């Protein structure tokens, strides 16, 4: 048991000190961590799902607060919460089916075996239908309003009929719930691991012969995407904008050349000059918001504008862990990271033009180094996720598949309680 606590602390420290960065790495670590939180969480006989949700939420809150810029961490926390709710709901539905059945069988003459062909009562069917209906209806939202921690999640959809006989299968149910949840989280981790390949599989559909592709900076997803197309014997050219101030485009260009791709390295400022020769822009993202807007490495908004000006398709590759269920108009969400100015400028150089305590106290020179840009949805032509290509306007539907509405406000609920 002590492990979980120290594991959580360790990961929080890593996040705080910016030792783990990049959405895939953080997402994966967060998922692994939450899995161990779930597996070590002791759950009582009642309200197992609630206990799990509370535990995950408590940890999740800390993780999000440790580095709010890593949106993927919050996404994973929400995904895991959603998984718990989902599994719980399906178990409840199944159990309730049995329960109703037995109730029915008590009243009436029974002719069907409950194990083989459960006959669902109207209420259970409705509950199941509600849970599968996405996005959640207003009614289910209202029903869920009483805090899920206090009232068992199941009771809201279950009705009065469940009662005495429930304790019998509780033990097995709790084990089953935990087991199912861990299974599902494992799947999630696997999804994160393989998202690059899954995205890359679609490369052939998008990259055609003799095309010119432009990208900026470096992204693992983009690299694999391009390489996958190359492996399928597509011949095309890639323009790589270097991506100041970190110049990761240089690394990407090297990698591409090493894999036999015709590559041209250009400066960021040459993007407008080159864009007219480009057939498609393919870039990675830091996060995709619910409205289809993209938080992406700095400089991409410029690329998107250039692409729009010349009617070049602007394609964003994003693993499903990058899908954030929040909207960017929320200042809590639209975060930017201001990195060290020394990436732009040597400190020694800079100190030369500092005033030596003689000026007004505020230096005349400021160096600002934001890490991200926000690209509005109207500039994005297509998102390619591990499930396929999507329109920006479709993002909210996709997000509703992955997250449950109860968890969207993870952060805001957390704020007053601390």
């Amino acid at each position: 048991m002590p492990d979980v606590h120290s594991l959580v602390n360790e990961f929080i420290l890593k996040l705080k000190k910016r030792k783990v960065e990049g959405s895939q790495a953080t997402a994966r670590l967060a998922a692994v961590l939450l899995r161990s939180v779930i597996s070590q969480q002791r759950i009582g006989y009642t309200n197992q799902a609630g206990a799990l949700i509370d535990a995950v939420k408590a940890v999740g809150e800390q993780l999000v607060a440790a580095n709010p810029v890593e949106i993927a961490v919050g996404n994973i926390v929400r995904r895991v919460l959603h998984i718990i709710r989902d599994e719980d709901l399906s178990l409840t539905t199944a159990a309730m089916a049995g329960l109703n059945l037995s109730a029915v069988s008590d009243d009436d003459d029974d002719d069907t075996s409950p194990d083989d062909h459960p006959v669902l009562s109207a209420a259970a069917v409705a509950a199941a239908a509600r849970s599968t209906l996405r996005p959640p209806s207003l009614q289910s939202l209202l029903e869920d309003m009483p805090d899920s921690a206090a009232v068992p999640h199941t009771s809201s959809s279950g009705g009065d009929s469940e009662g005495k006989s429930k304790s019998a299968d509780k033990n097995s149910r709790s084990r089953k719930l935990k087991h199912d949840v861990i299974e599902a989280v494992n799947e999630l981790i696997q999804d994160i691991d393989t998202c690059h390949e899954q995205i890359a599989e679609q490369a052939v559909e998008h990259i055609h012969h003799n095309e010119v592709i432009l990208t900026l900076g470096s992204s693992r997803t983009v690299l694999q995407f391009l390489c996958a197309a190359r492996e399928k014997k597509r011949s095309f050219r890639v323009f790589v904008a270097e991506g100041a101030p970190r110049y990761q485009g240089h690394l990407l260009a090297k990698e591409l050349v090493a894999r036999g791709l015709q590559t041209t390295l250009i400066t960021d400022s040459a993007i407008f000059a080159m864009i007219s020769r480009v057939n498609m822009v393919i870039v990675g993202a830091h996060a995709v918001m619910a409205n289809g807007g993209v938080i992406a490495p700095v400089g991409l908004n410029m690329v998107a504008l250039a692409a729009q000006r010349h009617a070049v398709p602007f394609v964003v590759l994003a693993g499903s862990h990058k899908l954030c269920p929040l909207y960017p108009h929320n200042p809590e969400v639209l975060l930017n990271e201001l990195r060290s100015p020394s990436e732009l400028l040597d400190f020694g150089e800079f100190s030369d033009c500092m005033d030596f305590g003689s000026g007004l106290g505020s230096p005349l020179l400021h160096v600002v180094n934001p890490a991200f840009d926000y690209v509005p949805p109207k500039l994005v032509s297509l998102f390619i996720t591990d499930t396929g290509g999507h329109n920006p306007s479709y993002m909210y539907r996709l997000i509703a598949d992955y997250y449950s509405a109860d968890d969207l406000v993870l952060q805001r609920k957390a704020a007053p309680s601390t």
Partner: protein
Amino acid sequence: MGAQKKSSAAAAARISDDPEELSRVPLQAVLLADSFTTKFRPITLERPKVLLPLANVPMIEYALTWLESAGVEEVFVFCCAHAKQVTNYLQCSQWLSQPNFSVATIESHNSVSAGDALRLIYERNVIHGDFILISGDTLSNMSLNRALQEHKERKKKDSNAVMTMVIKRSKLSPVTQQSRLGTDELFMAIDPDTKQLLYYEENTNHLKGTLSLDKMLLIDNPSITLHNDMQDCFIDICSPEVLSLFTDNFDYQHLRRHFVKGLLVDDIMGYKIYTHEIHSSYAARVDNYRSYDTISKDIIQRWTYPLVPDVLLFGNSATKLEREGIYRATEIVQSRSAQIGPLTVIGNGTRIGNNTKITNSVIGKGCSIGSNVLIEGSYIWDNVTVEDGCQLKHSIVCDGVVIKSGSVLSPGVVLSFKVVVGQNFTVPAYSKVSLLPQPTKQDSDEELEYADNNSDIETSPIAGAHDNLNGELTSDLTDMQSSAAEELGSGGAGYIWSICEGASEEEWRHSVAPVPAEKLAEISQTIDDDLDFSYQDGNAPASSGELKPGGLSDSDDDDVDANNDSAYFEKEVEATFLRAVHENVKVDHVILEVNSLKLSYNMEFAACAGAIFYSMMKLALGTPYNSSAELYNAVVNVLTSWKRLLKSYLSGKDEEIEIILKFEEMCSELAKELSPLFTKILCFLYDKDMISEDAILDWESEKNYADESDRVFVKQAEKFLQWLREASEEEEEED
């Protein structure tokens, strides 16, 4: 950081692959939680410097966070002054319970210097390999991998490479001749190829524009680069030998002034120090109030990323970065009419009243700031109360201070803990106020004898502070202490410290306040004047790079160290010589011994000749005599019997002039009885071919511009000189 992490992982892999490193010791660090200086007084009387907040986070947090992220696994925190506070702090923090990062404290109550601290650490026998030596007030985000690797590789090739010093470029202000951090000009000579440090000199005299280099430095090295635009980051990568070196030499106290310089001068053991220059990463040490100000601003401008307020979460309060560099903690009560300017940090739970203006400042946790307050460039720590209508400019205000309504803090003021400033009181500029009275003797455990510094501080009259004292002294309180408590206006509490431990007129150099414009104008004026002066100075014949002991006095009374050295050297030579006389040692052996002394003291031949001549004269003076004739005979005797010894050091004109100067000095100061014999002995030396005629004539011409008093002996020898001149003219005519 991601890249850094990768490279550290790579480095770890590399190390484990290395068969020699199989018995790998964890990377250790020694963090000195004591600066062994008094620059932060009076604050440090109550709290150790490492716990002082820098942008609302104690300095030690920065140091430990950096060490942790740089891959150090074991840190020994050496606490000395206020050791209890430091250990308590560490116990309450999360540092003691970190996985893969152990922090252990070593307490000591009788260490007065870094040297003592390192000796104690050596005794404890806890350091097993290379270690990082930093002081707790150092702030950095550099990656140590490169430097460590370089250090290890050098060590493998040359076991004498014991230390790697981290340096960074930083230009000096052209006017005040100090760096941004308020530190003095630093001269370094570095071998451009090997990066070996050859020379290290802190220039404490701001108007001095000269620098003396040993000739050997230029002879021994094919090329050197001289820097005065480098800043010492006070981050050292040391081999374990460093600790034993400290143990072997009990006079190593100060890390730089004694240890580094000692190693550089000492060419017998041949230990070498190397430098590692960092370019884009940040490293600096909070040395004085000026650097406190500068480094705080660097943090706010994110040069120290990721050690910035919104990332380095300390406590539970999350801080958010808003536009224009305003860092705001979560629970702040701020009036709508209050204006918060750019580059400001505001701590958790602080309340800010109407129409208050705050710019370029750091405000701590739980402060309450009234209405119509103006705060500019100030550092306000936790739980401070500032009542309505106050004005704070460029000052440091410690925890729990109360500033009553209408008060004004002039630039450069430091208010220590819990001081109360009375109503409508103006605290004079650069004054330091504390609840504790100023210690009369500097004997606290934070003290290090600043011998070199104090020697050039004239005991100046207590400046400004006392004269400006408000006259509201209540008459019924008679004793000094309680009257002092009223120094801060009615209802005030605290003593205004008189400025006497530093040079008072230098106060502005190290203050938080920017250098006032008048001061700048004044200095640039003196620099202009000085330029002319230094031209003259440059024309004076400097026969050798090294300072001549007791010689040209105008150039070397700045350098106490060199003088001390030469005095010791003279003594040693004298002792050697006397021993030789009494034990009948062969001349060759004496020469050998003197040569080795010369090497160990890093002296010139001229100095040897001077010292030998001096000891000869002392010997002659030591023999009993009744008249000056007898004394002359004794001198002649000694000179003739040891002529070969003296002769072997008289290789050129410089040495001969040195002897004459030495002789002159002796005659005028030490042994007045010799003075009548000056010409005679000079004559004798000339006859015996020990001193050439050129040397004597040069000596005379050198004295041409000297004072009348300096020319006494020239006058005495006038006839002899006349004769010499005529003789040389005759020779020329004959030619």
